């Protein structure tokens, strides 16, 4: 599509109308600049900043949070449509007809993310002060954390897909750096590399989607793309949507690009909490939610999203049942919970907001649990094996309490935040109607039961039962810098769901300008209260089974090997790596070998033949190179004679 | 720039109009054949006579300086000594070494002698006179590039020495020849450079015009040029204290060790004529040529024609006396000292001086308005530069060759290069850097 036609589309477009930033909102760039500046200072000043680097890192994020809060209140003072605030910064790529403007979009959706990132992020920063206290590279850690926060803020604040992409890559870089923070550990270095590579696969999808957008609309800005979205062909929309989904899968560790997340737990626990639980892995959800006008055009793409979400939520939950590594259990839980979000944003208009509610609640309770896990590890000399825990609830009461808050939230215990977020999604899945609704709803329901099972297992193995600590481990409660954030986040885990549902119009209402109004679909298959009871029942069954298995019986120090095939498979992360290897790596390897063979015998054969020809002939010709200057001179002389002959002939003619 | 070269407005306040007695290049080329022949013969005779006189004079003067009498038996005051020596030399047995390269051995003395005579062809020995009705200058000929001619002759004359030394097939002459070659190549540079200021002032390379340009002021006021020229000339003619090619103490007789009889006499002749020639050039270029000195130049009769011959001869003999005086006074330099003097002092000094003269000439010729301000500043600058350049170093160069450049020497242990001990390196006291004890 030509540029002029696309600009015509722009003019007539009926997409969201953004208002220009005024007043406080012109400072939105400061939100990003603060952590970025801090990151630059921390990474460039070197050891001189060791003494105060962590404080600067925390302060910058908290300042951003305060600024974000101020903006939230300013935004609440505006009416609905005026809440879509766009701030143009500068002309980024003015290359002929290809004009890319750099700008920031501050709307309810990005505002939600800003507060989540800076709020939860700030808590985790504070937590890290204690957690990383003994690490000689703590300053660098904070620098990279700040870099991550800045990139994540750019991701959610950018007003075009290209800006988003910069942030997208930025968080990928920061994630790589932070997973590999202890790069002297080969596992950490490998995990970082793996995360980076798998993410690249997703990024290719996103970049292709952006290119496709540019080819279609002539622009990559949200305003331009969305205003033209309703007039584009469904096939194009499906293509863009599926490519965006691929990007989201990579970043959010969704099936089939989920394999990196488990390995990413090699990074420091605050990283797992911030990046791999609360914020970065939700970027895919943000992307799909943000791109809702595109998905609105293509039901197929949306179906793809729901399938990915449903598969992943079961997938992650299954893996979570099998692992003994506390962080990996939480990671697979994350995978599963993000699957719920993806499912939610895949179901369609009116349910987007539920996904975001789940996202925020998950941010709280999962961060709580990760920090709790970090606290437990801190107390047990960085042991991550749950079989070596047990009976920690008395020794680490704060950790236990906050973790319990997160636990109750995640399994959807009534009036805890998960109850309001996850259960709504299951209901929405059932409410979608038809076969797909039934299947998706059942999957989500089953997932809730499995979630209850593995989380109960985790609780039982960690905090109950007899101590199974290794020698020399004497657990005690973590320092206040660690417990304080856990308490704050734990409170969030308890109350966030209720707050976001019942205060004012709730988060869903707040998000209406960005994501459209929450619709009431066809009348529910099962009544709402019935659904709630069903979900609770399933979760209770899961929890009870886990309690019987792990709470009542003593937990052996090593995992049993004579287990069913399913358990073995789950312990291998359902063969995610093996599938990757079989589906991608091996064919690629064989293709490469075939190409090498062809290269060696086909291309090189021709080249070598040519070379042999040249070499053979020059082998004879080189005899001319006698090393005797006088022979060369004779040749030169002959050449000069030829020139003279030529000149003479030229004169003669 | 062009103005500087093509026209010759002198910086001197006023230049007297060229008198009828002054010659220019255009004066020449009109003589009848017999007159040219006469001049050539006259110059030849003049040179031979002055050589004979010089042989006597040198011996007498050196003898006086050494509280001796010198030759005083042959003729009045022993004046016939030179002639007697010449006859004796010519009649001696001629020995040709078996190892000699005969053709070269033969032509070497000739090659040495001819350019020595040739160079005198462009020396003006007097003003314009009338000979049998022909108005002509007392000079065989003149060229627009006469000074270059003289330089060419002197540079060619050294072939005689080099070839003679080589053709003898003997070691000492060869060493003498080598020294001579290096010496001539080195000193010709400073000699030629010393002459360039003259060209800048005279605006010509013709000897007669240079002499004419000295009508009022002699170019001897270009003192650095004069000094450098004289020092270089001594080096160029292999005279003491720069007579290294024939250093008796080391090389027996130097390049002419194996020569005898008439061939040796030719070398002898060539050396004295060369001495005469460079003195004549000094006279011509720096001492006003045939012009009468100072106040006498105001008298027209004394400053023209045949009188010029007298003044010229007197000046020439004065300069020649200087040569003899040097020989009687100064010890011979060592070879490396000699080379250092040439390359490290004379050439840089003449370059700096040339730059200074050129700058002054440019200022004068271009009539720079600021010259009143610029000239003093420039002079101060150049003086400072000279001071800095030639300020005697507090470090004495090591005379007995034990240390290079006076730096403390570092004893070489088992390492290939004399490098200082590196930090952390094993310092074996026997290998440690130490100053070599000076004798």
């Amino acid at each position, binding site marked *: 599509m030509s540029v002029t036609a696309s600009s015509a589309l722009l003019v007539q477009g009926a997409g969201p109308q953004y208002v220009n930033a005024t007043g406080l909102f012109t400072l939105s760039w400061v939100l990003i600049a603060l952590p970025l500046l801090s990151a630059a200072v921390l990474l460039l000043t070197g050891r001189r900043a060791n003494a105060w680097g962590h404080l600067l890192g925390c302060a910058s994020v908290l300042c951003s949070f305060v600024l974000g809060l101020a903006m939230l209140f300013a935004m609440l003072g505006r009416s609905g449509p005026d809440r879509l605030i766009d701030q143009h910064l500068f002309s980024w790529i003015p290359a002929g007809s290809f004009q890319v403007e750099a700008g920031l979009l501050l709307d309810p959706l990005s505002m939600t993310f800003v507060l989540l990132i800076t709020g939860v992020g700030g808590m985790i920063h504070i937590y890290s002060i204690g957690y990383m206290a003994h690490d000689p590279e703590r300053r660098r850690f904070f620098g990279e954390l700040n870099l991550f926060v800045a990139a994540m803020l750019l991701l959610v604040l950018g007003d075009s897909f290209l800006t988003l992409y910069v942030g997208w890559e930025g968080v990928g870089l920061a994630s790589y750096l932070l997973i590999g923070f202890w790069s002297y550990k080969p596992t950490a270095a490998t995990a970082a590399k793996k995360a980076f590579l798998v993410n690249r696969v997703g990024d290719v999808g996103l970049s292709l989607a952006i290119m496709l957008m540019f080819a279609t609309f002539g622009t990559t800005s949200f305003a331009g793309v969305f205003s033209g979205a309703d007039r584009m062909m469904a096939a194009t929309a499906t293509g863009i949507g599926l490519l965006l989904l691929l990007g989201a899968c990579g970043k959010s560790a969704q099936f089939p690009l989920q394999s990196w997340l488990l390995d990413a737990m090699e990074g420091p626990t605050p990283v797992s909490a911030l990046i791999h639980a609360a914020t970065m892995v939700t970027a895919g959800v943000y992307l799909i939610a943000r791109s809702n006008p595109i998905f609105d055009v293509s039901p197929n793409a949306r179906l793809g999203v729901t399938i990915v979400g449903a598969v992943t939520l079961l997938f992650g939950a299954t893996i979570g049942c099998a692992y003994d590594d506390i962080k990996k259990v939480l990671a697979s839980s994350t995978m599963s919970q993000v699957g719920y979000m993806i499912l939610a944003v895949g179901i369609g208009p009116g349910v987007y907001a539920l996904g975001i509610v789940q996202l925020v609640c998950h941010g709280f309770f999962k961060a709580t649990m990760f920090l709790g896990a970090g606290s437990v590890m801190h107390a047990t000399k960085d042991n991550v094996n749950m079989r070596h825990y047990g009976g920690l609830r008395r020794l680490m009461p704060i950790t236990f309490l906050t973790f319990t808050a997160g636990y109750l939230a995640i399994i959807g215990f009534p009036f805890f935040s998960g109850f309001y977020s996850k259960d709504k999604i299951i209901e929405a899945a059932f409410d979608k109607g038809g076969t797909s609704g039934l299947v998706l709803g059942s999957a989500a329901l089953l997932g809730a039961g499995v979630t209850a099972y593995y989380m109960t297992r985790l609780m039982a193995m960690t905090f109950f039962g007899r101590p199974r600590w290794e020698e020399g481990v004497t657990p005690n409660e973590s320092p206040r810098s660690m417990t304080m954030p856990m308490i704050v986040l734990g409170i969030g885990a308890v109350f966030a769901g209720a707050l976001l549902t019942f205060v004012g119009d709730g988060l869903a209402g707040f998000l209406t300008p960005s994501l459209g109004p929450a619709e009431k679909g066809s009348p529910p298959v099962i009544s709402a209260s019935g659904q709630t009871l069903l979900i609770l029942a399933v979760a209770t069954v899961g929890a009870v089974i886990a309690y019987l298995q792990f709470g009542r019986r003593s937990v052996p120090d090593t995992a049993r090997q004579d287990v069913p095939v399913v358990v073995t498979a789950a312990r291998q992360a359902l063969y995610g790596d093996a599938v990757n290897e079989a589906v991608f790596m091996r064919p690629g390897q064989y293709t490469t070998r075939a190409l090498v063979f062809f290269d060696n015998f086909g291309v090189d054969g021709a080249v070598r033949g040519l070379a042999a020809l040249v070499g053979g002939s020059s082998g004879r010709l080189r005899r001319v190179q006698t090393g005797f200057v006088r022979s060369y001179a004779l040749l030169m002389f002959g050449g000069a004679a030829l020139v003279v002959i030529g000149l003479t002939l030229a*004169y003669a003619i | 720039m062009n103005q500087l*070269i*093509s026209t010759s407005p002198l910086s001197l306040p006023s230049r007297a109009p060229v008198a009828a007695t002054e010659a220019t290049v255009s004066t020449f080329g009109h003589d009848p054949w017999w007159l040219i022949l006469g001049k050539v013969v006259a110059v030849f005779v003049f040179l031979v006579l002055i050589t004979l006189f010089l042989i006597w004079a040198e011996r007498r003067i050196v003898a006086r300086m050494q509280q001796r009498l010198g030759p005083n038996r042959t003729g009045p005051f022993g004046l016939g000594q030179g002639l007697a020596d010449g006859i004796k030399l010519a009649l001696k047995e001629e020995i040709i070494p078996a190892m000699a390269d005969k053709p070269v051995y033969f032509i070497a003395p000739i090659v040495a002698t001819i350019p020595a005579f040739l160079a005198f062809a462009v020396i003006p020995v007097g003003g314009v006179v009338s000979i049998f009705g022909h108005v002509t200058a007392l000079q065989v000929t003149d*060229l627009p*590039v006469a000074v270059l001619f003289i330089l060419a002759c002197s*540079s060619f004359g050294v072939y005689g020495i080099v070839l003679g030394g080589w053709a003898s097939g003997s070691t000492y002459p060869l060493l003498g020849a080598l020294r001579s070659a290096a010496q001539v190549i080195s000193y*010709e540079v400073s000699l030629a450079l010393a002459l360039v200021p003259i060209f800048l002032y005279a605006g010509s390379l013709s000897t007669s015009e240079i002499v004419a340009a000295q009508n009022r002021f002699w170019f001897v006021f270009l003192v650095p040029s004069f000094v450098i020229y004289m020092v270089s000339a001594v080096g160029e003619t292999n005279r003491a204290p720069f007579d290294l090619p024939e250093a008796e103490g080391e090389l027996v007789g130097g390049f002419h060790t194996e020569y005898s009889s008439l061939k040796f006499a030719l070398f002898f002749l060539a050396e004295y004529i060369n001495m005469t020639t460079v003195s004549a050039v000094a006279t011509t270029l720096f001492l006003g040529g045939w012009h009468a000195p100072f106040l006498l130049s105001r008298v027209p009769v004394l400053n023209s024609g045949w009188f010029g011959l007298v003044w010229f001869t007197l000046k020439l003999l004065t300069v020649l006396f200087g040569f003899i005086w040097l020989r009687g006074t100064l010890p011979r330099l060592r070879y490396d000292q000699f080379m250092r003097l040439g390359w490290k002092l004379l050439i840089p000094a003449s370059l700096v001086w040339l730059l200074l003269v050129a700058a002054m000439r440019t200022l004068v010729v271009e009539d720079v308005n600021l010259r009143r301000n610029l000239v003093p500043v420039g002079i101060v600058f150049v003086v400072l530069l000279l001071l800095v350049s030639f300020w005697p170093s507090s470090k004495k160069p090591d005379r007995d060759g034990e240390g290079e450049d006076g730096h403390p020497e570092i004893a070489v242990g088992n390492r290939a290069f004399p490098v200082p001990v590196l930090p952390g390196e094993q310092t074996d006291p026997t290998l440690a850097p130490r100053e070599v004890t000076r*004798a």
Partner: protein
Amino acid sequence: MSGLAHLGTASYALQQTTKGEAVIFWLLAPIAVLAAMAMVLSRRAVHSALLLAVVMLCLATFYAAQDAPFLAFVQVIVYTGAIMMLFLFVLMLVGVSSADSLVETLRGQRAAAILGGLGFAVLLIALIGSAVSSMTVRGLTAANAGGNVQGIARLLFTRYVFAFEATSALLITAALGAMVLTHKELLVPKATQRQLAARRFADGDPSPLPGPGVYADHDAVDTPALLPDGSVAPGSVAPVLESMSAARFPRPDVLPLAEGDPQP
């Protein structure tokens, strides 16, 4: 020589030179060609150098005859005086020991060179002949009106000033390059006189080497001294002279070396 410079300034027909110049040309051109050929064929490098000097002098004369007096003397001063002197200097450093062998070692090189040379000369002359057939000689009378030196100076310092400066830089570089190339690094401290004396005694030969020549009728430096038993005293003749005498002619007057004596 003195009159040559004026030959060029004399007026002459456009195509023709003066008779004097023609005489000089026909006198010197054969000399130049013969000298050049002799230079190529001469076995001793020094002779070659001398003959080349002769060629250069002839060319200098031609320059003078062709209204280039400045160049003529620069030719003598720079080429004959400096460059050829440098050649002689180097020859004495490196090539005094023997005459060159003229036996050709590269197969076909000599024949090819001679044939090629002849053919090339013929071609070149033919080319010049066809090129100059329509030539008009303008002469330098106008260009040299202000004097040859002045004319050259004017061009040199205006149109060719950059080339002039570039060549000056080249000369400096060449001088430094030659110094660097021929510089011998002193790796160990120079032996002092004391050390030299000590070494001489340590070597067991404190006295000077035997001097040359013990015959009454031969006291030349290349005549070896004899030991009491009549054999040649080793080291009594400088090695350079030994190789020269061996290379140049046999010496019947030198006693044949005794068996087992060190060969010179």
